[in-house]
C-alpha cells in the first residue's frame, strides 16, 4: 500500500488510507470528476466517515510523520486490516456527479420522447378545438395503435435500460451516447416540423396530425430496435478468444466473446473471474524459505589489473549469474522433498478430517414422523450443527492450517455451512441419536452429505464462494494502451490490476474456418484381411 502512518491515531490513519485507496481505485483515464482530495479544500464535499478525522496542521508535513513500509512493518499490520480499511473508505458514499448526470440526462430524454406524441395529439385539441375537422373511425384506430405502441415502447425500455448497472465504466459508453443523440435529434426535428407546419398554420386536418404523431412513435420503436441490436445482439456471436492469466500464480482461462469495447470486455472478464478462477491465496505462492535461502549466497567479484570499472557493472553481474548457474546446487532436491513432505502431511490431515466428519455425522439422524420423541430432544439445524461441530473442529482446524486456508473460513462460516448441509440433505428436524453408528434412516446416504460438506474445504473454490470481504470487487483498475472505448481487435492486451496481483488479458481472433464437404458412400466401407502375401519377381 505504499507509505503508511504507524503509531498515529486511528482517525488519521483512516483519513490517510482513504486518499490512497480512492486514488488507486480510479485508475487510468477517468472521465469523471477527480477523486475527492479530502482536506485540501477544507471540506467542500461532506463525506460521511465513520471516524471524524483528526486533521494534521498542514498536509506538507505528512512526510515527516509517516514511516516507509519495510519488510518488518508490513507484517505487523495484517493484510486483513488493510483491506478492511480501504473497503470502508470506498463504501462511504462517494458522490459521482458525472454518472448521475448521465443517467438523469437519459431519463429526461426518454421522458421527453415518450410524452411528445401525446403532446402532438393533445395540443390541437386544446388550442383550436372548434376549427378541427371531425375525425371518426380512422382517428380512433390511430389512437388505439398509439396507445399500444407506447405501452410496448415503455415495456421494452424498461426491459432494456432500467437495470442496475453492474459496473462503473471509466469512459462513456459509446453506443448509448449514440442512441441518445439519435433520439434527441429525432424528437427535435419532429418538434420543429410540428411547430412550423401545424402550430403556426393551425392545421385543421386532425387526422393528419394524429398520423404525424403515430409516425413519431413508429420511429421511436425502430430506434428501440436499433438499441436492442447494438447493445445486446451484436456482442453475442463469438469473434474473439480472450486469455486471462493471473500474474501471481499463472492460473489462466480462455473465454469467447463477441464484438465488445475494451471496457465492456474487462467487465465481462471480471464477472467470469469471480466464478472461474480459484481464490487468490498469497500464502501458497512462495517457495519454502529453506529452498530460497541459499540462492543468493555470495560471489564476490574482484577485478584484477584494470581500473576501468565504470562500465563493468553489467559485466560483473553477468559473471555472477553465470557462475551461479554453473555451480552445482541441490536446491531443487530440497524443493522436491519439501513438496513431497507437504503433500504427505496434507493427505494425512485430510484423512483425519474425513474420518472425523463422517464420525460426527453419524451422531444425528432425521426425525421420522412416527417417532415418539421427547420435545426436549428435538433440535433445529443450527443446534444440530453446533452439537456435532465440536467433534470435528480440531481436525478441521488442523487441516485448514496445513493448506493455509484458515483466513478464508471462520468458525461462524463453518457452522453456517454445516447447518446448510444438514438442512438440505435431511429434513429440518433432527433428533439427537445416542451412538447410533451406521444406522441411517431415510434421506440421502450419509456419504453424500459428508462429501458435500467437505467439498468446500478440500478444494480452493472460486472467489465468489467466500465472504464478501474477500471479493474486493471495487479495487480493479483497467490499464490499457489503447483508449478503452475502442473495440476489441486481434492482439489487444489490457491488464486488470489489483493491489496484490493483476489479470493480463490478451485477445486473439477466432480463426476463420473453411469447411469443405466430402461425401462418403456408405457402400464404400470395405475391408480385407491382412495376410502375408507373396509376390514373385
Amino acid at each position, binding site marked *: 500500500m505504499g507509505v503508511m502512518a504507524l503509531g498515529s491515531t486511528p482517525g488519521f490513519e483512516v483519513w490517510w488510507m482513504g486518499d490512497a485507496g480512492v486514488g488507486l481505485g480510479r485508475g487510468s483515464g477517468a472521465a469523471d470528476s477527480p477523486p475527492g482530495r479530502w482536506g485540501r479544500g477544507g471540506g467542500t464535499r461532506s463525506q460521511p466517515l465513520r471516524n471524524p478525522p483528526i486533521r494534521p496542521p498542514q498536509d506538507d508535513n505528512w512526510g515527516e510523520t509517516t514511516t516507509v513500509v519495510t519488510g518488518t512493518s508490513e507484517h505487523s499490520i495484517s493484510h486483513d486490516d488493510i483491506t478492511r480499511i480501504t473497503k470502508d473508505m470506498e463504501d462511504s458514499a462517494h458522490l459521482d456527479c458525472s454518472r448521475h448526470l448521465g443517467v438523469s440526462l437519459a431519463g429526461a430524454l426518454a421522458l421527453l420522447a415518450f410524452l411528445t406524441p401525446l403532446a402532438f395529439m393533445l395540443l390541437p385539441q386544446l388550442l383550436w378545438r372548434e376549427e378541427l375537422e371531425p375525425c371518426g373511425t380512422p382517428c380512433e384506430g390511430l389512437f388505439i395503435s398509439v396507445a399500444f405502441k407506447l405501452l410496448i415502447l415503455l415495456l421494452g425500455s424498461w426491459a432494456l435500460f432500467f437495470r442496475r448497472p453492474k459496473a462503473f465504466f471509466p469512459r462513456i459508453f459509446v453506443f448509448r451516447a449514440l442512441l441518445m443523440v439519435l433520439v434527441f435529434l429525432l424528437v427535435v426535428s419532429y418538434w420543429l416540423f410540428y411547430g412550423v407546419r401545424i402550430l403556426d398554420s393551425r392545421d385543421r386536418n386532425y387526422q393528419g396530425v394524429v398520423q404525424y404523431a403515430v409516425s413519431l412513435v413508429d420511429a421511436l420503436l425502430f430506434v428501440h430496435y436499433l438499441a436492442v441490436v447494438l447493445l445486446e445482439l451484436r456482442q453475442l456471436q463469438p469473434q474473439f478468444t480472450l486469455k486471462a492469466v493471473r500474474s501471481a500464480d499463472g492460473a489462466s482461462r480462455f473465454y469467447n466473446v463477441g464484438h465488445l469495447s475494451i471496457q465492456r470486455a474487462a467487465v465481462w472478464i471480471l464477472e467470469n473471474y469471480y466464478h472461474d478462477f480459484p481464490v487468490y491465496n498469497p500464502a501458497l505462492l512462495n517457495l519454502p524459505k529453506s529452498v530460497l535461502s541459499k540462492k543468493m549466497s555470495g560471489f564476490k567479484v574482484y577485478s584484477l589489473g584494470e581500473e576501468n570499472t565504470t562500465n563493468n557493472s553489467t559485466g560483473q553481474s553477468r559473471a555472477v549469474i553465470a557462475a551461479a548457474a554453473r555451480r552445482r546446487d541441490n536446491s531443487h532436491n530440497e524443493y522436491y522433498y519439501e513438496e513431497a513432505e507437504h503433500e504427505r502431511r496434507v493427505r494425512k490431515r485430510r484423512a483425519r478430517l474425513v474420518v472425523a466428519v463422517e464420525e460426527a455425522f453419524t451422531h444425528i439422524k432425521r426425525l421420522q414422523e412416527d417417532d415418539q420423541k421427547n420435545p426436549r430432544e428435538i433440535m433445529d439445524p443450527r443446534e444440530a450443527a453446533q452439537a456435532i461441530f465440536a467433534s470435528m473442529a480440531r481436525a478441521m482446524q488442523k487441516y485448514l492450517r496445513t493448506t493455509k486456508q484458515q483466513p478464508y473460513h471462520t468458525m461462524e462460516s463453518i457452522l453456517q455451512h454445516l447447518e446448510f448441509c444438514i438442512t438440505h440433505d435431511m429434513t429440518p428436524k433432527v433428533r439427537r441419536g445416542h451412538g447410533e453408528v451406521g444406522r441411517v434412516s431415510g434421506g440421502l446416504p450419509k456419504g453424500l452429505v459428508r462429501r458435500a460438506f467437505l467439498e468446500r474445504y478440500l478444494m480452493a473454490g472460486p472467489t465468489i464462494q467466500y465472504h464478501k470481504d474477500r471479493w474486493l470487487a471495487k479495487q480493479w483498475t483497467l490499464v490499457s494502451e489503447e483508449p478503452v472505448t475502442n473495440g476489441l481487435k486481434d492482439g489487444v492486451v489490457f491488464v486488470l490490476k489489483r493491489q496484490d496481483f493483476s489479470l493480463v488479458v490478451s485477445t486473439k481472433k477466432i480463426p476463420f474456418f473453411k469447411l469443405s464437404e466430402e461425401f462418403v458412400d456408405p457402400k464404400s466401407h470395405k475391408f480385407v484381411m*491382412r*495376410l*502375408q502375401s*507373396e*509376390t514373385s*519377381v
Partner: protein
Amino acid sequence: MSETHLRFLPVITIYFISFSFQQRIEIHKLRQGDNLILGFSIGGGIDQDPTQNPFSEDKTDKGIYVTRVTEGGPAEVAGLQIGDKIMQVNGWDMTMVTHDQARKRLTKRNEEVVRLLVTRQSLQKAVQQSMMS
C-alpha cells in the same frame, strides 16, 4: 514415405554393422519373353501382417523377406537364399516400404542388374560366435 538413397548408405551401414552382418548380392535379370525376372519371391511390407512371417526373428519386423528362390534362377546363381531380409535395392531402402512398392523397385523395366543388400540370421549367428570366441 522417405526413401533413402545412396548418400545415406554409410549411415545405415554403420548403424547396422553394430548389430548384424550384411551381404551384397548382385543379380542379373533374365529376360523371359517380355519380362525381366529375378527368380525369387518376396513377402512382407509395412502394410502386411508381420506376425505371419516365418523367417523373421522378431515378429514385429515389417521388412521384405525372400520367401522362395526358384531353382537355377538368377537369384540362386547370385547367392540369394531363402529367408534373407532385403535391406536395400540399388540404394533404395526396403525396410519401410509397402509390399507393392517393394515389388515395383525390384521389377523396374529399365534396370538389368539389381544390387541387393541383404542380411540373414545364419550370418548374424556366425558373426556373434566369432565375436564371442
